[in-house]
Every structure is written in structure tokens, then in C-alpha cells.
């Protein structure tokens, strides 16, 4: 019987197995940021331990950092303390760090791939639940808690129970104007926020094979939003082409050896999965969320649900509560929902292709009166690249704010937040109550929909312009 892609990666990383105990898994890359690491480093210090492999560890400043005046001292004392602490810990333990204002600073899940550190067949962890982003390269990548961060720092391993196997079979290809974000939002709406619990999911099929690496990252990024432990995609020519020449990609003979290994990373034809989900990509249209979890989404052409018409009592109650929080009227057209803010950024959609897509919609147009649009590149490198292509001009000429790299309004730990009652169209990944600021209301959208929404002031797709 054949093996799945996840089986192959898992099995080559088991350091130790013992009956009745979880596998001890070797971690190839540990990404660290300022919010979930301080107590872990402190734990090492108290126990007199070192970081076992600083050379397999990378720190960046992203979650809590300002996106304006980044070289000035951070105004918020809590943020400043967390960033200063990370810097001190990195220095003390010899961990490389990309600090604010340096060339490779950025959102942790954007810089790993960008540097070529994220490669097929690896195990990657980070104290952040969107670590599955790296699964786009055919890696097993997942988020961990602070105690586990300390465990990985000290041992470069993690005791882990193996996830079950799931295949997400995507038939057909996306129609023009329909994006990877629409695909993953539609999948989450189909399977629910708990649909992937306990599984490592492999996305495969025509639409996935034809997708760019950046699109694949958008898909894998949101694996956690339907409950999957990790999501991954088999590496192929698109993957190799993306990696070749990146700063940390192998070179020469090492490249050849790596490539030979990467080419063994696919699910065997006779491998079996514990569960399979099917999705028809060709039938999809732009997709947005109306509620307060990522599974509460519908095609943009649809109307806000009418709770009375929902048969399932739990779903009905959830819809009622969400509609009330969101300040919507049951049955109203999604296209009639007016927004105050548009956020383009995050590890879901803060890469160069996302910025290009939004800029192509905004070019020669203006952000609607009364709407603010924040454009936050996912990394300093994405920012520089975008500026070299003149995208910053497109955004600023349209009336949008062009910012420095970071998580920003994805989780609103820094000054970029919604005011109570404010509504956003956001390219990020979570529309939970208060996620983008206390009392804020979030609609998750693709970069294209974000841009069109900024122009019209109501949830819109480029076709509406």
C-alpha cells in the first residue's frame, strides 16, 4: 500500500517512537516572533538551557509592530517591550533576527518562503496558527503554543501525535476573476470551521496544479480556519522554479540532490486517505464572508442569510448572533453592504501578486469618499518590489495609505484597528468578533474584491466597476 505525501514527510522526521507515546518529531525550521516567544526564552534561561539549533531558528518582528514611522521608538509600551525582549533574546541565544527597518523583516509566514528557507519535505513550526502557509511547498507546517516553542528551542523536536490523512480534491480550474482566496473561502463554507479537525489535509487537483506558489500559500494559510492541523500541496515545477535562486535555496550539487529528493514527494497512486473532500473550482465565483467565522461565507452575488430559513438549530442561532453583531439585515444583498475600511495585507494576501492584483483594479480609479484603504505589504521585500513596479504610486494616487510591512490590521495589536461598529473588507483570514479592533466588523475577501470594494464603497468585484 502506498504512502501519502504527509506520511512520507512525517516518517523521515521521526527521531524516536515508543509504544503509548507520541512520535518525537525533528523540526527543520522554527520561526519565532515577539508575541509568543518571551516566556519560552525565559524558560530556557531559568533552566540554564541553550537554543539547540540557532541555525534552524529564525526570528522576525511582525505581530505587534507599527506600520508607520517604524524607525522611531515604538510608542505603545507593551509592543516596545515585546520587540525589545525579542531582540535581547535573539542576541543572547544567537538566533538570527530580521528587525524592523531591515531588508528581510516581515510577516513570519511571508519571509520564510521569500528567503527560500521554506522547502519541500521539511517540518516547520511557529508559535502562530497560520504556519500551515508553508505547506504550499510540500512541507508539514503547523502552529504551536509557548511551552512547545520552548521545547523546540531546547530540543529541536516536538512530541506529536500523527494527524489523520485527508485529501481535498479540487476539480476543474478557476474561472478568470476567481482567485485562490475565493476557493479557500468556499471550501471552508462547505466543510465548516471544524471540518478538518485532527487531519493533515493535502490539496490537489487541476486548479491547485495550475496555481502560482503565492496562490497555493493563500490556500494552505487558511487550513487552520477549517480546523486542519496542517495543509499541504505536493511540490512540482512551479515550486522548484519559485525556489531556485532564492537566498537560502540550495545551489549546484546541493540543488540537484535536493531536487531529486523533492521529486519523491507526492502521494502514491495507491495511497489511501482517511477522508476526502471534493470541490468544483470551475463553478466558483467571488466569495465573501457575511458572519463572524470564516465558514460563514457566500458568493458575492448572494444575499445575507435569513435565519428563519435555516433548518439546523445550531446554525440558525449562530447566524442570528452573527447577523446582529455584524449589523446586517437578513436577506439584504451582500453587494449592498457598505464598508468604512479596506485592508489589503496579511500572511494570507500580503504578497506581491496580491498587491499587483489589487493595483490593477485600482489603477486610474479612486477610493470612494468616506472609505479608508490600508495597503500593508507582507514583508519589507514585498514593499520594495512593489515600489520598484510603481504599485505604491497606484495605491497612493487612488487615495489609499501605503504602509510598512507587518501583521497590522490582521490582528490589530498595533495602532491599525477598526473603531467599534466600523466595518471592513479585509484580505486577512479571521472575521471573529473584535479581531480587527473591539466592536469591529470584518468581511473576508480577495485582493481583487478588496480593491473593487474600495472604489465602490460597497462589497464589489472588479466586474461591478
Amino acid at each position, binding site marked *: 500500500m502506498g504512502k501519502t505525501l504527509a506520511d512520507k514527510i512525517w516518517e523521515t522526521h521521526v527521531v524516536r517512537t515508543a509504544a503509548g507515546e507520541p512520535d518525537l518529531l*525533528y523540526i527543520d525550521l522554527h520561526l519565532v516572533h515577539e508575541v509568543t516567544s518571551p516566556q519560552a526564552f525565559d524558560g530556557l534561561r531559568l533552566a540554564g538551557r541553550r537554543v539547540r539549533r*540557532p541555525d534552524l531558528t529564525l526570528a522576525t518582528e511582525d505581530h505587534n509592530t507599527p506600520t508607520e514611522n517604524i524607525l522611531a521608538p515604538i510608542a505603545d509600551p507593551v509592543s516596545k517591550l515585546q520587540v525589545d*525582549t525579542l531582540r535581547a533574546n535573539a542576541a543572547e541565544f544567537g538566533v538570527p533576527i530580521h528587525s524592523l527597518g531591515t531588508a528581510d523583516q516581515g510577516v513570519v509566514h511571508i519571509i520564510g518562503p521569500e528567503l527560500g528557507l521554506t522547502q519541500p519535505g521539511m517540518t516547520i513550526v511557529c508559535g502562530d496558527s497560520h504556519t500551515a502557509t508553508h505547506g504550499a511547498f510540500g512541507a508539514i507546517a503547523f502552529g504551536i503554543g509557548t*511551552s512547545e516553542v*520552548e521545547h523546540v528551542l*531546547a530540543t529541536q523536536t516536538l512530541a506529536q501525535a500523527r494527524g489523520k490523512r485527508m485529501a481535498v480534491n479540487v476539480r476543474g480550474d478557476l474561472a478568470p476573476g476567481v482567485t485562490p482566496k475565493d476557493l479557500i473561502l468556499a471550501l471552508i463554507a462547505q466543510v465548516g470551521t471544524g471540518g478538518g479537525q485532527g487531519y493533515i489535509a493535502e490539496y490537489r487537483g487541476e486548479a491547485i496544479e495550475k496555481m502560482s506558489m503565492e496562490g497555493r500559500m493563500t490556500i494552505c494559510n487558511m487550513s487552520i480556519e477549517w480546523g486542519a492541523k496542517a495543509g499541504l500541496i505536493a511540490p512540482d515545477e512551479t515550486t522548484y522554479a519559485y525556489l531556485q535562486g532564492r537566498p537560502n535555496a540550495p545551489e549546484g550539487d546541493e540543488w540537484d540532490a*535536493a531536487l531529486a529528493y523533492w521529486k519523491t514527494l507526492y502521494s502514491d497512486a495507491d495511497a489511501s486517505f482517511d477522508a476526502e473532500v471534493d470541490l468544483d473550482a470551475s463553478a466558483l465565483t467571488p466569495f465573501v464572508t457575511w458572519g463572524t467565522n470564516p465558514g460563514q461565507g457566500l458568493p458575492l452575488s448572494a444575499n445575507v442569510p435569513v435565519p428563519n430559513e435555516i433548518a439546523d438549530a445550531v446554525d440558525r442561532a449562530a447566524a442570528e448572533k452573527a447577523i446582529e453583531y455584524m449589523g446586517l439585515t437578513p436577506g439584504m444583498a451582500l453587494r449592498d453592504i457598505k464598508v468604512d475600511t479596506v485592508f489589503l495585507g496579511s500572511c494570507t494576501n500580503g504578497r506581491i501578486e496580491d498587491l499587483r492584483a489589487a493595483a490593477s483594479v485600482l489603477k486610474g480609479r479612486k477610493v470612494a469618499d468616506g472609505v479608508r484603504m490600508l495597503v500593508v505589504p507582507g514583508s519589507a521585500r514585498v514593499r520594495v518590489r512593489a515600489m520598484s513596479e510603481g504599485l505604491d504610486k497606484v495605491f497612493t494616487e487612488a487615495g489609499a495609505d501605503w504602509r510598512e510591512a507587518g501583521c497590522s490590521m490582521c490582528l490589530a495589536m498595533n495602532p491599525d484597528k477598526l473603531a467599534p461598529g466600523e466595518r471592513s473588507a479585509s484580505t486577512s483570514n479571521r472575521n471573529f468578533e473584535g479581531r480587527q479592533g473591539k466592536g469591529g466588523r470584518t468581511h473576508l475577501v480577495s485582493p481583487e474584491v478588496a480593491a473593487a470594494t474600495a472604489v465602490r464603497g460597497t462589497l464589489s468585484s472588479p466586474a461591478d466597476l
Partner: protein
Amino acid sequence: MDKFTTHTGIGVPLRPSNVDTDQIIPAVYLKRVTRSGFEDGLFAAWRTDPDFVLNQPAYASGSVLVAGPDFGTGSSREHAVWALQNYGFKVVVGSRFADIFRGNSGKAGLLIAQVDQDVVEELWRYLEDAPGSTIAVDLTDRTVTAGANSYPFTIDDYTAHRLLNGLDDIGITLSHADAISAYEATRPSFKPTTLPVRVAS
């Protein structure tokens, strides 16, 4: 984690029951980035009272807390354990403990010695009659000794084993360090490293 076999230190009688983790350390102290330095938040509300037991010089450097029943209830904050440890406590003796607090203590290396409530009462009297007296705690034979009297205490075998051997979860994994090193020796050389730092040409 340090090995725990025996500890002798000044006993502190803490009479209230149901001391929850909010009383052990209030939420306002949780914003820290450290796992150390929480001693200033320990029993913060009570420490403003001059009569509070830790404000009495004889008890101020105590390291064995003799607590009332249902100690450590409420929120799951591990900071409660850290605060006790940061202050200098090594052992909490009592008759009943909240499960999560007990679990957190075991992970962090704070010994929870469970005795009958009448033993707690005897220990309180002993410590209050002669403030500053010490209590000896022996994990090997699971006894608490105050003066001439020794009392048995209970603890689950797995936690005792980990404490006696100084094994936290990381310690347990590090006991397999040979396996980790052996694995590392087999890792292909093409796997990326973050050091030395490389920048794009």
C-alpha cells in the same frame, strides 16, 4: 528543572480556604514578557495588609506554604505557579488542590504535598506557636516533618518520578539527546540553515 529530593525551609501558615489563582496573582500582573519576576504580584491584594502572614518578618523568607483546602482554584494561569516559585516557595502542603493548579505545578517543578486536613491543622499550630520554624519535606519517602513529628503525604507516581529526576517535558526529551544527535547526523546537507544569514545578491 532541578531535581527535587528533600527541602527544608521556613513554613508559612496560610489559613484561608479556596485561595484562587486571582488571589495568588491578579490579572494585571500577566502582561509581562517573562516567566520570572512575578513575585511582586504574589498575593498582591493581601500584601498591602500589614497583618498578612508574609508581611511578618519571621515568615517573610518562607519556602514551604501550608495552605488551606482547595488551593489554586479559578483560572488556569500558570503565572500563579511562577509567582509562588519566583517568591521562593518550593513546596505547597495542603489537603485539597485544584486540578489545573496541581498539573501546572508538576510541569513547573513546584511540589504539591497532599496531607489530611488534620495534619494541616497541626502544622498551622506548630508554625504559629513558633514563627520561623522550618519544615522538612522528603519526596523520596514522601514525608513532611515538623519538629519531632513526621506525616506521610501523597503525590502521583509519575509526577514524583519526574520531580525526583528533575524531568520536565523538555528534560524527558533531552534524556533522548543521543537519539536526536543520531538523527541530526543523518540529515541531508541540502537542508537549509538560517545561519550564516544570507541576503539576495
